[in-house]
C-alpha cells in the first residue's frame, strides 16, 4: 500500500496524531510554541475532520481542569501547553494523576521565565517530574505523531490509568517541517479501541470522585499510584512493540541504545538533541572511537533497569541536560546517577549543562563532550557538572 507522507511541522504532526486518536473533548489555551497544534485542531473540528468538543478555556489551569471534568465521565481528552502554561497547570497536574485521569497532553518544551524566553529547553517539564505524569520525549515529528497515539493506549490501560505528557522541543521540533507518514484512520482505530474505564461518574452507577483521604489511607493511595507508574513500563514496551508490528515503526520502548553494544563512552540524551549526537557519534566511530548514545525516551517512569545494565558494559558516561536544578546539577544527571549508584558502577561521569533558552548545541561541542569522556576513562578526574560553551568568566 502506498504510504501517505506529508511535509508538516512537529506541532502539526501532534494535531494529526490527536485527530487520529479521536478525543471527545479538547480543552486548550494558546502559548508559543504550542499554538500551531491547537490552531490545526480547531480547523479539523471546524471542517468536520474531527467530531469533538473544542473548549476555548481562559487559562491553562482551566484547560487541565476541564480535561479532568471530561475524563471523569469517561471521555477521551486532549490538551496542549508549554513552559509558563505548564507551570500554571502544576496544581491540576498533581490532581489529574492523583485522580487517575488518563489525559494526554502535548508539551512544547520551552524555557521558563525569568528571563523571558520563548525558545527551547527542558526546564518546564523536568521541574514537574514529581507530578505523577508519564513523561515521554520525542526526537522528531514522526515520533511525536506516533507517541500521541501510543500515549492514549498506555495512559488508558486498566493497569496504568495515569495521565501522559508527550514532550517536543520547542521550535526545533514544533516548528521544523519534516516528511511525516500519516497512518490510516482504520489502522489507528484497530490499534486504539474506545476508552472504557470503571473510574468514572455515570448515572447507572453514581460515584463521588476526587475525595479527601485521611492520614490512615493516604499512603496506600500514593503507593497504588506509584505502582501503576511502575507497572506502566511493561505496558509501554508492549504498546511500542505492537505499534511497531502494525505501523512499521518501533522506538525500542524506554530507551534507544545507539552503538552502545561495545562502546567505551556513552552520551545520554533527551529529545531532539539525540539527532545531532547520533551524527557526531557516527563520525567518531568512523575514526575508530568507541562511542555510543543512550536516548532516554521516558523520564517517568525512569529507565533504571536499562541504565544499570548499560553501566556494566561501559567506561564513561556523560549526560546532556537542557536544564539545571539550581544549587545542584542537571535533573537527568541526578536520575541517571541514581541508577549508576544502584548498579555500583565505576565509570567516569560528567554532566553537561547547556542549550538553555534555545541556544543551539553544535556538533563541535558534542564532539568535545565525547573526547572529555574518553579522556576521563582511567583518569583520577572527579565527576563534574559543566556549563559548556559558557561566555562569561568563571572561577570554577
Amino acid at each position, binding site marked *: 500500500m502506498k504510504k501517505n507522507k506529508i511535509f508538516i511541522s512537529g506541532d502539526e504532526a501532534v494535531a494529526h496524531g490527536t485527530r487520529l486518536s479521536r478525543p*471527545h*473533548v479538547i*480543552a486548550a489555551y494558546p502559548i508559543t510554541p504550542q499554538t500551531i497544534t491547537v490552531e490545526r485542531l480547531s480547523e479539523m473540528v471546524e471542517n468536520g475532520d474531527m467530531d*469533538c*468538543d473544542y*473548549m*476555548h*478555556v*481562559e*487559562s491553562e*489551569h*482551566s*484547560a*487541565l*481542569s*476541564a*480535561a*479532568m*471534568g*471530561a*475524563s*471523569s*465521565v*469517561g*471521555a477521551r*481528552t486532549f490538551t496542549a501547553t508549554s513552559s509558563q502554561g505548564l507551570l500554571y497547570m502544576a*496544581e*491540576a497536574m498533581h*490532581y489529574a494523576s492523583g485522580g487517575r485521569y488518563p489525559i494526554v497532553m502535548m508539551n512544547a518544551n520551552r524555557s521558563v521565565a525569568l528571563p523571558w524566553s520563548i525558545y527551547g529547553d527542558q526546564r518546564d517539564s523536568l521541574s514537574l517530574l514529581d507530578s505523577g505524569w508519564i513523561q515521554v520525549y520525542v526526537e522528531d515529528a514522526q515520533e511525536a505523531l506516533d507517541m500521541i497515539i501510543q500515549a492514549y493506549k498506555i495512559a488508558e490501560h486498566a493497569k496504568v490509568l495515569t495521565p501522559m505528557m508527550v514532550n517536543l522541543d520547542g521550535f526545533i521540533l514544533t516548528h521544523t517541517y519534516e516528511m511525516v507518514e500519516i497512518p490510516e484512520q482504520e489502522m489507528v482505530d484497530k490499534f486504539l479501541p474506545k476508552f472504557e474505564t470503571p473510574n468514572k*461518574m*455515570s*448515572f447507572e452507577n*453514581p*460515584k*463521588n*470522585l*476526587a*475525595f*479527601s*483521604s*485521611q492520614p490512615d*489511607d493516604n499512603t496506600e493511595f500514593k503507593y497504588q499510584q506509584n505502582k501503576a507508574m511502575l507497572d506502566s513500563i511493561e505496558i509501554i514496551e508492549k504498546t511500542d512493540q505492537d505499534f511497531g508490528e502494525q505501523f512499521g515503526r518501533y522506538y525500542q520502548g524506554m530507551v534507544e541504545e545507539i552503538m552502545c553494544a561495545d562502546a567505551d563512552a556513552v552520551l545520554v540524551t533527551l529529545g531532539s538533541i539525540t539527532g545531532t549526537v547520533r551524527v557526531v557519534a557516527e563520525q567518531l566511530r568512523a575514526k575508530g572511537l568507541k562511542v555510543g548514545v543512550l536516548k532516554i525516551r521516558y523520564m517517568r517512569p525512569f529507565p533504571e533497569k536499562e541504565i544499570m545494565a548499560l553501566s556494566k558494559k561501559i567506561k564513561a558516561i556523560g549526560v546532556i541536560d537542557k536544564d539545571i536544578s539550581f544549587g545542584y546539577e542537571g535533573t537527568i544527571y541526578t536520575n541517571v546517577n541514581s541508577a549508576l549508584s544502584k548498579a555500583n558502577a565505576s565509570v567516569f561521569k560528567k554532566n553537561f549543562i547547556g542549550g538553555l533558552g534555545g541556544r543551539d548545541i553544535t556538533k563541535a561541542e558534542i564532539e568535545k563532550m565525547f573526547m572529555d569522556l574518553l579522556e576521563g576513562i582511567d583518569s583520577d578526574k572527579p565527576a563534574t557538572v559543566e556549563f559548556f560553551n559558557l561566555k562569561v568568566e568563571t572561577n570554577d
Partner: protein
Amino acid sequence: MTNQTIDIPRVTAKNITEKEFFYGHKACAGCGGSVAVRLALKVLGERTYSALPAGCMAAVGFIFPQMAFANNSIITTFPGVASMASGIAAGAKALGQKDFKTVCFAGDGGTADIGLQALSGMIDRDDDVLYICYDNEAYMNTGIQKSGLTPYGTQTTTTPAGKNLPGTKTNKKNLFEIIAAHDIKYAATASIGYPQDFINKVNKAKHTKGATFIHVYASCPTGWGTPTHTSIEIAKEAVDCGLIFLAEYENSEFKINKNPKEFKSVKDYLTKQGRFKHMTDVDIEKVIQHRDIKWERMRRNWSTKK
C-alpha cells in the same frame, strides 16, 4: 416573588421530592451552605453531576470512605470548579448523554476570588452549567478568613477589629452584577431564608440551557457567632433589612424580586452576630449608607414589577 415561567413544572413544599441527595455529611450544626445544597439537589434531581471546589461542602461531603452525595459528585481544583464542570458537561454531551444537568456548589471565596476567572470563562462559553455560590461571607472552611464577599465591618481571623481597624475595611464585591455584566442567560440572588424563592430560581436555571448563576446567601453559625437554630431566620433578616437583596437578571434586564417598603433594623441584624458585635454606631451608619446608595441605584435602574 420569582418571575416564574409558565411551562416549568413548579416545585413547592408540597411536591418536592422526599429523596435526599446530600446526607451523612459532617457539616456544622445549623450550616446554611448544606441547606442550599440539599434544596438545590432536590430540585435538580438524580441526573445531576455536581462539582465542588475546595471549601466547606467539599470538606464535609467527601471524606473517604464516607461519600455524602447520592448523585455523581466530584471535588475540583479550587480555582477550577467552573472549568471542571464545563468539562463534565462537554464530556457527557460528547458521549451522547441527554437530560442531565451539571451544577457547581462553591463558596464565596471559591467564586468571587480564586474561582472568578474560570467562572467568567464558563459564562463566556455559555456552557450548560448552573453555578451556585453559597455565600457565608468568609473563608469558613479554613477558619473564617476574609474573602471578597466579606462585608464592611466584619471581624474575621484575618481582619481582626481593634483600636486601629474596624474589622473588614471594604464592602462586598458586586458579584451578581459582575456575573450579569457577562450578559449571562440567567442569574439570580437568593437566600436560604426565602427557600421557596431559592427553589424557584434553581428550577428556572435547571430548565435554562446554557450558563446560569445563583448567588445564595447561606448562614454560618460557626463563622458568624450566631445560635445554630437561627440560621434560617438570620438569612431571612439579612434580606428584610436590605443588606442582601433578591433579584434576577434575564433577557439582559435586572429585576428586583422583593422590594420592601420599609427595611427592618440593620442594627438588630448586626448586633446579634458575634462577627459584628464590636461595631460602633458610626460603623453601622456606614453600612446603612452603603445599603441606601445601592438600593437607590437598583430602584432607579432595575425593574421592580411584580
